[in-house]
């Protein structure tokens, strides 16, 4: 029987099989940030051991960092201490750090790929559930907990039972106004927030193969939101083209050797999955979420479904939306474009192109937050910041920002945000905040009109 892409990458990294237990999996690339690593380093200290292979770990602070005045010390004392701890720990153990103010600093899942740290066929882990992002390169990438961060630091391995395999095939061309974010929100709304639990997803079909790497990363990033550990896409010419020439990409003869290997990474035609789903790209509209988990989403022009379930009703109450009514036209207070889901250059191009020549609505606060220092540089090089300024919108500095309420960018209680990030949980963007997840294009429509709006109408698509 043939092997799936996932099998090929996973099996090549198994160091040992434990009877009736997990497998010992070797990790090629370990990314760390300031929130989930300090207790792991403390654990190493307690055991009196050093990092086993410091060259395989890369660090950057992102969750706690402010997105204005980054040249000044972080005002919040606890945030500052956590970021300082990362600097101290990486220094002590000889780990590469892109600290605050470094041109490569940014959200860890934006930084890894754009510098060429992420490559096809790798195992990639990080103490962060959106590590799934790196699956876009045909890597087996998934989030881990702090105990596991300690394991990787101590031994370059973790212990994992092998997940089951699911394939999601989407075929056809996306309609105007429909972006990769809409594709993944659509998939999650069909599978529900727990439908992928226990699985690793392979995304297949020409809808994905015709996406850019940025688009594929947006899709893989949100695999965790249907409960899957990760999602991946077979590497192809688009992948190789993206990786080539990046700072940490293989060079010269090494490059040719790697590409030859990467070309073997695809699912064999006779391989079998534990679960399969198929969707048609033509059925996908611009999406929006109306509830408090990413599975509670729908086409933006649809009406909120009715369900007799206390958890469901609680979610609608929290969001102040009504079953049987549309969300179109609801006044929006905040628009957030950024995060590891939609904080890459293409996302800002799409947003800036859409708002070009128009004005931000007076009732909305708009936060535009590049995913990394490199993205920020590119935005400026392309003059997108000027387009934003003319629309009355300011560009901020890189970080996780309003994706989670851990730094200064918090949405106040009761306020409604249209966000390009990945989670709409209660209070995710600040205690009492209400979040609707959408694409950068739908975010642009909200920024211009001050309401939840269909981008196809606002921009005549």
């Amino acid at each position, binding site marked *: 029987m043939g092997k799936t892409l996932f099998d090929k990458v996973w099996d*090549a990294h198994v*160091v040992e099989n434990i*009877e*009736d*237990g*997990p497998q*010992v999996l*070797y990790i*090629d690339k370990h990314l760390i940030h300031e*929130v*989930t690593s*300090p*207790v792991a380093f*403390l654990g190493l200290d307690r*055991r009196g*051991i050093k990092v086993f292979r410091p060259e395989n770990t890369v660090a950057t602070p992102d*969750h706690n960092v402010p997105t204005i005045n980054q040249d000044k010390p972080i005002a919040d004392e*606890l945030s500052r*201490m*956590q970021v300082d*701890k990362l600097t101290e720990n990486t220094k002590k153990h000889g780990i590469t750090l892109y600290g605050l103010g470094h041109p490569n600093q940014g959200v860890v899942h934006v930084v890894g790929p754009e510098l060429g740290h992420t*490559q096809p066929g*790798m195992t990639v882990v990080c*103490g*962060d*559930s959106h590590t799934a992002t790196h699956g876009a390169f045909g890597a087996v990438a998934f*989030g*881990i*907990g702090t*105990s*596991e961060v*300690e*394991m990787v630091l*101590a*031994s370059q*391995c973790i*212990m*994992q039972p092998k*997940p089951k395999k699911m394939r999601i095939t989407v075929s056809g061309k996306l309609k105007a106004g429909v972006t990769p974010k809409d594709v993944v929100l659509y998939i999650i709304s069909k599978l529900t*927030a*727990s439908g992928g*639990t*226990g699985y690793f997803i392979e995304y297949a079909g020409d809808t994905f193969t015709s996406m850019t790497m940025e688009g594929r990363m947006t899709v893989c990033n949100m695999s965790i939101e249907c*409960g899957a550990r990760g999602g991946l896409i077979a590497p192809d010419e688009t992948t190789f083209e993206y990786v080539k020439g990046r700072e940490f990409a293989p060079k010269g003869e090494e490059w040719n050797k*790697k590409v030859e290997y990467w070309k073997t990474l695809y699912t064999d035609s006779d391989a079998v999955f534990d679960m399969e789903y198929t969707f048609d790209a033509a059925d996908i509209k611009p999406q929006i979420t109306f509830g*408090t*988990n990413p599975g509670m989403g729908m086409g933006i022009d649809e009406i909120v479904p009715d369900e007799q379930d*206390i*958890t469901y009703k*609680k979610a609608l109450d929290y969001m102040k939306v009504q079953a049987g009514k549309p969300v179109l036209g609801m006044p929006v207070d905040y628009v957030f474009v950024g995060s590891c889901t939609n904080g890459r250059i293409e996302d800002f191009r799409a947003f800036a192109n859409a708002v070009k020549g128009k004005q931000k609505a007076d009732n909305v606060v708009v936060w535009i937050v590049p995913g990394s220092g490199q993205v920020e540089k590119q935005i400026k090089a392309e003059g997108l910041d000027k387009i934003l300024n003319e629309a009355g919108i300011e560009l901020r500095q890189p970080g996780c920002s309003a994706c*989670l*309420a*851990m730094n200064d960018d918090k949405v106040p*209680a009761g306020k409604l945000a249209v966000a390009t990030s990945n*989670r709409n*949980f*209660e*209070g*995710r963007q600040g*205690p009492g905040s209400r979040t609707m997840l959408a694409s950068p294009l739908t975010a642009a429509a909200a920024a211009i009109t001050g309401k939840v709006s269909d981008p196809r109408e606002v921009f005549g698509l």
Partner: protein
Amino acid sequence: MIEKFVTITSPCVPLPIENVDTDQIIPARFLKATERKDFDKNLFRDWRYDSNNNPIADFPLNNTKYSGKILVSGKNFGSGSSREHAAWSIYDYGFRVVVSSFFADIFKNNSLNNGLLPVQVSAPFLAEIFEAVEKNPSTMLEVDLDAQTITIVESGKKESFEINGYKKECLKKGYDDIDFLISLKDKIAKFKSPLA
């Protein structure tokens, strides 16, 4: 080393809500510590306290009717972020077992790595527990790791749960994975990744 897991017989705290995500278990603003300290104080912070920091009386953790080492919750418990702080806050609060009809993957791993036992039961059995607790808040549950069973003591209703043999041994003996991996160092050092 983690604390050794022994059979637990205890009343429980019911939380009949589905999709309880880790942002509810411990909101992001409480993740700023650089040590594992005080996370229990902020367990379910925004459901437990109002915006003036007053306890919300009818939230189960504040309801004196309920107590014990077992938390029982609706399906898809622990979804969302990978923060191990969620498992720490539940454990440090005093829980040793979480019962649900479905757990998110990363949360399950994190729990097992910290001596907190996730017990997955069928949806009807979960409903039975909620019902029993509603009738009698001091309903006792017995969780026997050796036998892999959970029992509603009063009615004697019982269901078995799954756990892989390796993890079971680790919990019983209080071993952790890091000790094991460190003992494999030589083998790991010789291992060649296809990407190396």
